[in-house]
């Protein structure tokens, strides 16, 4: 006997588009229709900030070679992301960095000499001034995404109109913690903004070996949250996307994932030699897309910046950096007891004994 079949539909249950936002091209020309509202003063200030970041970074590399700094992960090339996101943040917002975020940490109130101190091997470098809403550097890759979800949930539950902004690299999106953090942020609609600094390289592993996804922004679809890709060397695109995402989170409409495409112009850290795994031509091509150069061209084109101002700013940034080095190197030495005293709110007896042992050893 022949069974009579039915026709079952095969339907599309999901379809998604991921957009890329660019406003400022490498020649310094903008799409006026997309330009965010920023005063001339604000734009010049952003530029000055980016120049200061570069100076802070350059100086750290020099200090490291002179034996005055520990291992340093340079941010060169990623200044537009950090300045653009910082510009979109408000006083009450929290920043949760990974470890290549010195620029945005600086703009969120962490003094540069403390950033230096951390990388020079001094925990006091993560003891920020009161009121600075910045988490310490997160070295275990990807772990900070979870904190960004937790802080976003904390702000939401307490009804604070504030946002947790978390940054991390492209490599960190391969960690399970990235998935868990995005998933939970989507479920709880936390006050969070996640910014991937996609600098193409996780030490020696290029993006195409990190993921088979065409973009990182599209991963947002899987978590039911908005995702957008921006040109990470275009400070206006970064600012624009970040401002929109922060508004959304602040208004209780949930998290956003921003992929900012950039390039790590330097080595992974001072302990790395990138010439072992990538070609000079690739680096040279990205140097032409330098985010600082690009903004300068735009400002010059609008008559907001000239060579004299450039010279003044370079000198100002240099002397500011030297002040930071002086502040770093005039920090009094830590007390040997410091390695014990902050383990717990109250020093337990066994640590008191061990502390006495160390103090006797160093004769203090």
């Amino acid at each position, binding site marked *: 006997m022949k069974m009579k079949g039915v026709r079952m539909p095969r339907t599309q249950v999901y379809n998604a588009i991921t957009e890329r936002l660019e406003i400022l091209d490498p020649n310094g020309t903008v799409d006026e229709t997309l330009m965010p509202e920023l005063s001339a003063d604000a734009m010049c200030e952003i530029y000055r900030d980016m120049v200061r970041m570069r100076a802070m970074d350059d100086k750290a590399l020099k200090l490291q070679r002179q034996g005055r700094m520990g291992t340093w992960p340079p941010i060169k090339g990623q200044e537009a992301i950090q300045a653009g996101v910082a510009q979109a943040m408000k006083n009450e917002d*929290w920043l*949760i960095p990974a470890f290549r975020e010195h620029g945005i940490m600086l703009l969120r109130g962490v003094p540069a000499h403390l950033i230096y101190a951390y990388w020079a091997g001094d*925990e*006091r470098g*993560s*003891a*920020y001034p*009161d009121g600075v809403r910045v*988490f*310490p550097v*997160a070295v*275990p890759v990807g*772990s900070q*995404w*979870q*904190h*960004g*979800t*937790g*802080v*976003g*949930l*904390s*702000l939401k*539950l*307490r009804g604070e109109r504030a946002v*947790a902004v978390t940054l991390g690299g492209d490599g960190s999106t391969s960690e*399970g*913690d990235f998935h*868990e*953090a995005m*998933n*939970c942020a989507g*479920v*709880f609609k936390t006050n969070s903004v996640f910014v991937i600094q996609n600098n193409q390289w996780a030490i020696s592993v290029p993006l195409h070996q990190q993921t088979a996804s065409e973009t990182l922004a599209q991963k947002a679809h899987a978590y039911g949250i908005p995702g957008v890709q921006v040109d990470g060397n275009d400070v206006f695109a970064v600012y624009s996307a970040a401002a929109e995402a922060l508004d959304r989170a602040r208004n209780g409409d949930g998290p956003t994932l921003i992929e900012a495409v950039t390039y790590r112009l330097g080595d992974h850290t001072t302990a790395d030699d990138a010439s072992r795994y990538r070609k000079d031509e690739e680096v040279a091509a990205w140097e032409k897309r330098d985010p600082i150069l690009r903004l300068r061209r735009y400002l010059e084109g609008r008559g907001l910046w000239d060579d004299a101002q450039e010279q003044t700013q370079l000198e100002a940034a240099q002397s500011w950096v030297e002040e930071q080095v002086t502040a770093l190197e005039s920090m009094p030495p830590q007390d040997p007891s*410091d*390695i014990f005293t*902050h*383990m*717990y*709110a109250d020093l*337990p*007896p*066994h640590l008191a004994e061990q502390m006495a042992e160390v103090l006797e050893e160093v004769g203090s």
Partner: protein
Amino acid sequence: MSTAEISVAEIETGAGPTEKLTIAQAVRDAMRDEMDRDPMVVVLGEDVGIDGGVFRATDGLIERFGPERVIDTPLAESAIIGMSVGMAATGMRPVAEIQFMGFVYPAINQLLGHAARMRNRTRGHLTVPMVVRMPYGGGIHPPEHHSESYETLFLNTPGFKVVVPSNPYDAKGLLIAAIRDDDPVLFMEPKRIYRAFRENVPIEPYTVPIGKASVDHEGDDVTLISWGAMVRVCHDAAEMLAREDLSVEVVDLRTLNPLDRDTILASVEKTGRAVVVHEAPRTNGFGGEIAALIGEHLLLHLLAPVQRVAGFDVVFPASKNEHLYLPTRDRIAKAVRRTMEF
């Protein structure tokens, strides 16, 4: 003497009307009382909401406090701890549940890499006052991965406090103390005895101090040192040995870090003999640390080598064989007799 009588006699604070509770109910009441007192206390974990927890340790909390404070999370242990770190560092007091200690591995990065270190690495500027509740230990005939005792993982990681109650009175008082503590506290709950017995527990909130052991049962010949579900087995052994005219003292550590060394050393100095009992595997287990501590301080007082009665150095057996693994009254009694015959 039953543990119930002993514990009630030891009430530090909160004397007053009591009710008969199991450990699971006492744990639930501790969270309820603290959530009543402090709006920053929230509970989060898998199935802690409408289900009331797979052991019912959060039963009724969601009805009282709503889903914003009793948060059913996605099935993601690392996120439960990672989010708790973020919440605790920004002023909340999360009480996270890891459904079984055997499932804590995905959260190790967040626990060891962040929770235990935040205060120190920021020199006290950011702290994470959070509690992680974890049912631990064997004896309930479950599937694989539901019987582990992983305290040693955390005891070699400075920055945590590690607390293990053995009875309903301590469970409530220690959990309230843990929630009020300014450091991350790992709270191991002996699931085998979650509902094994009831005892009088004060209705009012009270604390049992973290870092303080209790001498449950006084004796002169041998000191049994244990924690969690094994404390009751030690009491059984002590009762049996009493019929052989052996006077056994039972020390319930209650907190493993910071360890109450004074209570351990005072007891062993008096008896001259010690047996440490725990469920975790013997080699590199916490019993070795306690034996070393006793050796360092009391060598000339000792009448016999310190004995260890522990789990064997094997994968925790599936349910048909778990009786072979877990320390029993008879194994403990044998170890005690060995110290007497030395």
